[in-house]
């Protein structure tokens, strides 16, 4: 039972069943409505003003947190900082209503998927499945999820694909491999189908942002509440381990690596949770990737 005061994180299936019950209710109440009419009613019931405000607030907070993180990072040259911040600010949070906002992917209304996407036109957007609004009520889970997706706007592969270059990322990439956060790929195969670099980076940066969020509330929450919040921030990663087969782990590191290594060994997370190192040797032995 979580003690996260901001809300719970349910299994994905529960969130989807909840939205589907609403969907079925609308269809039964209006048996002569077309699929489009039903979807318009569904998005009003799912993407309510209150839920939209919450998601927008998290998006704004995460975007600002990432900008500040980049601005204070001395490993980035000024030109690189400008590019990264520009990439972050270009991302549009795209949410219904009306239903036509997702007219190319209306099945998203009843799913948990949250994703960043670069369009062929060059535009970039972040979309949120309707069921996710029922699955994830915890502010910290929202923060981690949005930070992960927004992190893709500045991940090494995205930068490469858009013709940019961030020298500071090279050291980070080597560290990811050395720490076994991701598998090494053959030279020339970086950012290919089997490379986990994008997802590992997105997790890594989401952990930084989540640590900031936890630190922000550390003075207001009790220790148990902070622990509950930390658990909730990555709770859905546990479920993903059960539902995925090998094919999805081509792009994502295994859940155990994500939770244990990338999240659990973060010095910032450990500090917020009160896990002080017992000795100087412990400090040396905690290997964590940083810029």
């Amino acid at each position, binding site marked *: 039972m979580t003690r996260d005061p901001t809300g719970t994180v349910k299994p994905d299936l529960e969130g989807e069943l909840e939205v589907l019950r609403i969907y079925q209710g609308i269809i039964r109440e209006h048996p002569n409505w077309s699929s489009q009419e039903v979807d318009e009613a569904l998005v009003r019931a799912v993407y309510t003003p209150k839920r939209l405000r919450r998601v927008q607030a998290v998006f704004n907070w995460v975007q600002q947190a990432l900008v500040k993180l980049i601005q204070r990072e001395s490993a980035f040259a000024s030109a690189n900082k400008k590019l990264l911040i520009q990439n972050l600010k270009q991302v549009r949070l795209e949410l219904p209503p009306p239903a036509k906002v997702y007219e190319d*992917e209306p*099945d998203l209304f009843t799913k948990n998927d949250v994703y960043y996407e670069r369009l062929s036109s060059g535009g970039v957007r972040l979309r949120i499945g309707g069921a996710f609004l029922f699955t994830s009520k915890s502010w910290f889970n929202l923060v981690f999820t949005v930070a992960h997706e927004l992190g893709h706007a500045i991940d090494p592969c995205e930068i490469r694909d858009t013709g940019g270059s961030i020298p500071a990322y090279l050291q980070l990439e080597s560290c990811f491999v050395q720490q076994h956060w991701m598998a090494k790929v053959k030279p020339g195969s970086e950012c290919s*189908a089997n490379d986990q670099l994008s997802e590992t980076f997105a997790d890594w940066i989401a952990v930084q942002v989540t640590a900031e969020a936890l630190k922000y509330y550390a003075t207001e929450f009790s220790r148990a509440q902070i622990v509950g919040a930390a658990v909730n921030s990555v709770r859905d990663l546990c479920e993903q381990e059960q539902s995925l087969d090998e094919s999805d782990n081509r792009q994502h590191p295994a859940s155990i690596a994500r939770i244990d290594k990338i999240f659990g060994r973060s010095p910032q997370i450990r500090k917020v949770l009160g896990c002080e190192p017992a000795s100087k040797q412990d400090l040396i032995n905690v290997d964590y990737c940083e810029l």
Partner: protein
Amino acid sequence: MQKLLKSSLSVAAAFLVSGLIACSTISPGPREAVPNHPVLASSVEISYILGHSKYRIRMVEHLNGVNAHSSSDGKVLGDGRVDRVKYSEFKLKVSEFMRTARALKRVPAEVEGVCRNPFTVTLADTALDTLIGCRGGGDLGIGRLIREGEFLIYSKK
């Protein structure tokens, strides 16, 4: 996001249950029951990955009617009988989708394989037809087709 489009067309004895099972690209999970009916007229199956989950919509037409169900990671989301006329209309939409998808230009070879949200559409009617594709910014329309299928399932009799 990139698109990946492959297609295959094979003619088989579509009315044989064993033939359909052998040609199906996705096996049902342990929590899904596969009805055992003696005569199969047609079927539609759409399997797809979205986010971290595997989904499936399956509609099977028998002499007695049309059974449909949808599932996520092997767990049933919805099931029941659907209207035969509406099922026939949906089958036409599936057929049209497959025809249109094949008419689109193939993506450059170097981006093949980078597909996070693949899908498979299988239509067994007068022949057995399977299409494998990738959901992406190119808008093949798979999301809309899935939505039509979901609407049919949840409008069940």
